[in-house]
């Protein structure tokens, strides 16, 4: 039985994290703090308990490593393991059990819980993709890319141009009657000081984040810009180009799907769920125009590349 729990709502799915130690919830809280409270019947749940030593799977194979977290397959169960912390998710379960030692670092616990929520949300039909998503009057443009590919700079350029924001680093995809929707997980942008300076946004920077970046509250810098969801009409893969101007090149759907797979963590964790996950990505590239954007230096001055507008017919 948990001492206390955090209960939030994520697009109609209740996320509950309970723990028998207050400091564990303190570590997890920042990642969930911007979601509204929730108490719905349909949800996912992680119960964390204090222990002296975390249990480990008996026979396991490593699925992935993400930051300080290892994903291990033990039979049909998925284990997410960091120093002093582990979460086990059984096949088909929408609840997970976890263990935390007193020596566990708060950021490690937070990372394990975050990844566990990603996997549990997949089981509720919500699929995470590592991408920014900005919205013009014509519709949303998804920008999937590795870190340091210019997602945040492009996002800020779009916001300056009056576009709106779903997310700058992570969005969730859900299939619905109107096609694939991109859903927001409200969180601050993480911006390099130099980028903020060039874009005239230094005064909007908040607390230091990780990797030399600072938090920037999009709602404060661009009031009214944040939207909860939008329907993508284009998937654009940004890469940084050593040119002043930018260029857009159309991509075939198979190429776009293959690139999306790279930005879809946990895709390989379960054969059955991978089918559903792929079906959503397939429908996304089918409903969207797909292209690669080579972002030139113009983006750093806050100019949304004309190539993006013209190439996608968004002018």
């Amino acid at each position, binding site marked *: 039985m948990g001492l206390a729990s955090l209960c939030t709502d994520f697009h109609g799915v209740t996320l509950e994290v309970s723990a028998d130690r207050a400091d564990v919830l303190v570590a997890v809280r920042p990642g969930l703090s911007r979601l509204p409270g929730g108490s719905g019947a349909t949800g996912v749940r992680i119960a964390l308990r204090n222990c002296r030593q975390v249990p480990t799977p008996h026979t396991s194979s490593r*699925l*992935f490593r993400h930051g300080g977290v290892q994903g291990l397959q033990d039979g049909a169960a998925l284990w997410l393991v960091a120093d002093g912390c582990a979460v086990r998710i059984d096949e088909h379960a929408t609840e997970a059990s976890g263990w935390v030692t007193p020596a566990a670092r708060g950021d490690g616990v937070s990372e394990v819980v975050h990844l566990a929520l990603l996997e549990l949300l997949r089981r509720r039909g919500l699929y995470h993709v590592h991408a920014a998503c900005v919205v013009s009057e014509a519709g949303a443009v998804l920008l999937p890319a590795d870190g340091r590919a210019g997602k945040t700079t492009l996002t800020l350029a779009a916001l300056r141009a009056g576009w709106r924001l779903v997310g700058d680093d992570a969005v969730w995809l859900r299939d619905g009657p109107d096609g694939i929707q991109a859903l927001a997980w409200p969180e601050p942008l993480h911006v390099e000081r130099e980028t903020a300076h060039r874009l005239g946004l230094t005064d909007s920077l908040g607390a230091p984040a990780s990797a030399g970046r600072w938090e920037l509250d999009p709602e404060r810098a661009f009031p009214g810009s944040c939207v909860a969801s939008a329907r993508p009409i284009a998937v654009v893969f940004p890469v940084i180009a050593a040119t002043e101007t930018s260029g857009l090149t159309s991509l*075939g*759907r*198979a*190429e776009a*799907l*293959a690139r999306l*797979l790279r930005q879809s963590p946990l*895709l*390989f964790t379960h*054969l059955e769920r*991978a*089918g559903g996950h*792929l*079906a959503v*990505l*397939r429908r996304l*590239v*089918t409903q969207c125009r797909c292209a690669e954007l080579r972002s030139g230096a113009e983006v750093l001055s806050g100019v949304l590349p004309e190539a993006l507008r013209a190439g996608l017919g968004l002018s």
Partner: protein
Amino acid sequence: MIGVDSHLRPKPDVIVTDLDDEAVLLDMEAKRYFGLNDTGLVVWRTVAQGGTPGDAASALVREFEVTEAEALESTLDLCGDLVEAGLLVPVEAR
């Protein structure tokens, strides 16, 4: 060595996602993916349904403007790549 009359089958745990005339193969065990263009998809479908590389080359000749020699060379190259990638498995003759 993959030949005209080799028999191959898709490795279990490979998910095929068709996109009209293209496809992406996802190997869940190796955690890799492989894109197929329109001609590659014809080869994959033929072989996955029990046909030989020779059958796949004939299908390419019927559906695309290629010579039999070109089709066979491309088919054997692709089948070799897919076997090397572990996405197709040679079936031993009985």
